Structures are given as structure tokens and as C-alpha cells.
């Protein structure tokens, strides 16, 4: 096989697998994905979710994980409960789980290898885990990984898909090697347009498009774009892409390819289903950065996250004794500009006051905020938090509806009862 005849998408993955099979490089053993139920559904909240989703979900523990909110079993899609967002870094064993395809490999670290090739590199390369660790300068970034469809379940009207609540996200310290350093060894040609990433997951049937994602070449070569080998100082959990996953700070989770096995640099746009059809937004609805080589007349790929926040200290319907403080704490994040301020309202948006921000852990990280005011009068109050980033963008009051249910950043409204 020469570099120039590497076909796109699923064929590439099959070729990589064929190469792997030939050398015995990749052990594709199915993981056990059975989860143990430990709790019910009522406390998992968010009544805006479709009734079927509320009835269906329950707390279950995947291997290596604390009980998370199970949305679907196969492929596994599990959401992080809100209590784990009361710290700025999300624990590995509580980090959300999202897979598109139902066959998830159990990768053997000793035989795992990353192949780098494509029409727009000068020479193909292959790296073992040990080589990645020894040959490259380590790099670290603290960054939020958030599913494009986080909060999809709160869309009104509802749209089909995984009916996520608020927990299809997490923030971690990712450590690994820079994609740009790895690609430098292969030599990126001047005609490179996109860099294509393939993970070891696959569909139950050959007909299901393999999960392959591409990035604009300048994003792939950005110094913070990593092949992460560690998450919060530990190896990546199997459910989060062991032994290596892509980290694209600021960009939505769909680009953070798990169990990475292949990188291909190409002079033309990647045309597979996951780029050309899925994960797209109607053009002009959002102010996020444009993925130029993938823009079509009617739509374009989702790219960076929109500014957002989550109140983690209050539950809807919570009772607060009169005279006691209303403590509003939470986290805010965006697509990489960094959080400039968070404003809090305790009167349903009639007036706003600026919350205190906790130390900055980096522009891609969750930023904690806090605000406290005595609950002086009895009655129901609607508490809101509104984050603004350093680009001046802020959360929306009204949902920007889109067919696939992405970018939900409507200002949260939590009712508390002072008595």
C-alpha cells in the first residue's frame, strides 16, 4: 500500500486493521459493558427531559466507573451526575461516557500502535506507546470535553438523539504529546488541508460508517492539540479512550477521538458520514469559528463550544430557611476565549450582580463562580447564572433551535422556596 492510495473513512480503518492483523499489533477484544444498577431515577432531575428518557435512565456503574446516569447501554452513553461538578476538575471515574458504535475494543497497550500517513505527509510513521512517551516532549492542558449534544434532552420541541441532561461533559488535566510534534516526524506537505483521526471503535455491522473525524490542519497543528496518554495523572479509563485520545481544547467532544489508532493528513476535505452529514449546524446560527474546508451551502460542522454555565449548589424546588444565605455556586466555560464574568440573578432576571470567580485554571477549563445573598423574604425565587466570555459572548435567553440539538446554552432558571 502506498501513501497516495489511502482511501478515506472506513476503508482506511479496514486497511489499518489489516496492517494491525498482519503484525499482530492490535488486539480487538470486546469489553464487558454490563452495568450494575444502584439507584433509581427520580433524583436525577431535570423535568424538561422527555418522559421516556426520565423513566428510562438510572444510576449504573460501568467497569472502572462510579455509578453514572445511564442513557443507553449499547453503545454505552452515561452522563455525569451534577454533584461531580462541584469541583473544577472532574474525577476520571465520574467522567461521562459517550460512544457512537457498539463494538468497543479492549486495547492491549503493549501492542498498540499509532499509524501516521496520508497523501500530504512525506513519510509514513508508526509509533508504539513507549515511543510516544520517550520520543516527544510531554505537554499538558486543562480542558473541558463536552459532547456537542449536551443538554439535548432540554430542547423544546424535543429532537431525537441521546437525551442528555447537563452532564455530558467533564474537565480534566490532559497530558500527552502534541499532534504537531508527531506530524513533524512524518513531514506535513504544503498542500495539507485536513488531518483525519480514526479510533479503534467500530460498528456492529460493516455497513455502519466507521467513526472518523477530521480537523483543519491549523487546528491539528495548534500547540494545545494533544494526543493524551494521561487524564488527571492516571492512564485514560478504557471508557474514555485508553490508551490514547485526541484532545482538541475548545472544540466539542466529537473531535476528541478515543482509542486513536490512525492519523492521516490529506489535501482534500474528509468526506465520510461523520464529517459530511453528522455533527452539522445550519449556517449562520452561531458565532463559533468556521471549519472552512467543510462548509456546505446549507450547513457547516459544529466546531467550538459556546459559552455556558451550570449552577451546582441548588436544586430546583429546594427549600431555604428565611434569613439563611442563598449560596449560588457553579462552573462556567466556553470555547477557549476564557470566562470574563458570571452574573447572578435571584429575582428571575430582573436584576443581576457579578459573582466572584475562583482562580483561573486556564482558558479551556471550567471556571468556578460563587455568589451569596441572604434569603430575606419568604416566597419562591428564580435563581439564574449567566456567563460571559472574554470575547463578549454570553449565554442566550431563548434556545437557538437546530435539528440535531447542539449548543444548548440557555440561561438556567432554578426555583428555590424561601420559608
Amino acid at each position, binding site marked *: 500500500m502506498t501513501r497516495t492510495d489511502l482511501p478515506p473513512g472506513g476503508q482506511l480503518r479496514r486497511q489499518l486493521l489489516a496492517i494491525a492483523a498482519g503484525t499482530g499489533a492490535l488486539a480487538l477484544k470486546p*469489553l464487558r459493558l*454490563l452495568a450494575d444498577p444502584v439507584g433509581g431515577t427520580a433524583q436525577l432531575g431535570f423535568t424538561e427531559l422527555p418522559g*421516556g428518557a426520565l423513566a428510562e435512565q438510572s444510576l449504573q456503574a460501568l467497569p472502572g466507573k462510579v455509578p453514572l446516569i445511564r442513557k443507553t447501554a449499547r453503545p454505552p452513553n452515561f452522563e455525569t451526575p451534577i454533584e461531580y461538578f462541584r469541583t473544577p476538575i472532574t474525577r476520571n471515574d465520574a467522567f461521562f461516557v459517550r460512544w457512537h458504535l457498539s463494538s468497543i475494543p479492549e486495547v492491549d497497550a503493549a501492542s498498540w500502535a499509532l499509524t501516521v500517513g496520508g497523501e500530504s505527509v512525506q513519510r509514513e510513521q508508526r509509533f508504539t506507546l513507549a515511543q510516544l512517551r520517550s520520543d516527544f516532549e510531554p505537554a499538558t492542558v486543562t480542558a473541558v470535553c463536552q459532547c456537542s449534544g449536551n443538554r439535548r434532552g432540554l430542547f423544546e420541541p424535543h429532537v431525537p438523539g441521546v437525551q442528555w441532561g447537563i452532564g455530558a461533559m467533564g474537565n480534566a488535566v490532559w497530558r500527552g504529546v502534541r499532534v504537531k510534534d508527531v506530524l513533524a516526524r512524518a513531514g506535513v506537505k504544503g498542500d495539507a488541508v485536513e488531518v483525519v483521526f480514526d479510533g479503534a471503535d467500530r*460498528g456492529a455491522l460493516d455497513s455502519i460508517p466507521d467513526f472518523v473525524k477530521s480537523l483543519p490542519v491549523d487546528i491539528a497543528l495548534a500547540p494545545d492539540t494533544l494526543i493524551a496518554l494521561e487524564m488527571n495523572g492516571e492512564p485514560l479509563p478504557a471508557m474514555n479512550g485508553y490508551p490514547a485520545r485526541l484532545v482538541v481544547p475548545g472544540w466539542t467532544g466529537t473531535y476528541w477521538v478515543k482509542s486513536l489508532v490512525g492519523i492521516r493528513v490529506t489535501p482534500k476535505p474528509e468526506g465520510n458520514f461523520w464529517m459530511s452529514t453528522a455533527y452539522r449546524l445550519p449556517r449562520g446560527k452561531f458565532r463559533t469559528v468556521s471549519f472552512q474546508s467543510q462548509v456546505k451551502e446549507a450547513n457547516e460542522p459544529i466546531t467550538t463550544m459556546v459559552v455556558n454555565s451550570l449552577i451546582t449548589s441548588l436544586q430546583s424546588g429546594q427549600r431555604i430557611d428565611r434569613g439563611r444565605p442563598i449560596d449560588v455556586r457553579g462552573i462556567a466555560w466556553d470555547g477557549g476565549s476564557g470566562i470574563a464574568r458570571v452574573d447572578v440573578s435571584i429575582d428571575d432576571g430582573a436584576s443581576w450582580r457579578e459573582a466572584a470567580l475562583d482562580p483561573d485554571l486556564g482558558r479551556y477549563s471550567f471556571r468556578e463562580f460563587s455568589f451569596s445573598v441572604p434569603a430575606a423574604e419568604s416566597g419562591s425565587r428564580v435563581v439564574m447564572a449567566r456567563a460571559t466570555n472574554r470575547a463578549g459572548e454570553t449565554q442566550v435567553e431563548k434556545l437557538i433551535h437546530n435539528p440535531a440539538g447542539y449548543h444548548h446554552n440557555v440561561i438556567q432558571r432554578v426555583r428555590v422556596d424561601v420559608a
Partner: protein
Amino acid sequence: MRGNGIARRARRIASCGIMLAMAAATAPPATAGETAAGQTTPDASRPESDELVNAPGHERAVQCGACHSLDYIRMNSRFLDLAGWTAVVNKMINVYGAPIAKTDVDAIARYLTEHYGQP
């Protein structure tokens, strides 16, 4: 060619290892602890949440379990109308290559609308 494709699919399914509620109308849905190879794990006693309402059309609708657990259907209820469920089933066939006969689309969509659609 067609036969090879089916055989290849069958091999892939057999190697999948994660429980698969296969389409045979006579077979009950697989449970969580049951693998495609017929082996049983210690979790077999726990009921897998893979059942759908047993009513006309059920035998066709369980074909969806070839590629994903059927909790996907219950999770997406009840807000789609007949047009919505028809679009979903067609997307599964046309985009994801689900091995479901075109002649089954209408029956599956009607079943899903009645039991998992807009009330």
C-alpha cells in the same frame, strides 16, 4: 456478493461480544448477560432493559436491536409523530446501513408511533 455480505455481517455480529438482540421473530430479546456466542456472564440474572411493548409490529421493531440497545427507543419517547419516527427508521437504513427491509419501514414506524410516539 450478497451472501458474502450477510456472512460477513454475521461474523461481525458474532464477534461483537456485547449483547445483541437479534432480529429473529421467534427469539426473545437477548438479556444483558447473554453474549452473541450464547455464553452467559454472571450478570445474566439481571434483566436487560431491552424489552419493547409486545404488540403488533414488535417482531419487526426488535430488528433495531442488531446495532443498538432498545433503550434508545424508550429514551426517545414520547415526542415523535409518524413522520418523525419514519424519518428515524429511514435514517437508520439509508445512513447507518441497518439491515432492515424497506417493506418493514411502515410497520416499524407505525408501531413506534403508537407505543413510543406523541400521545
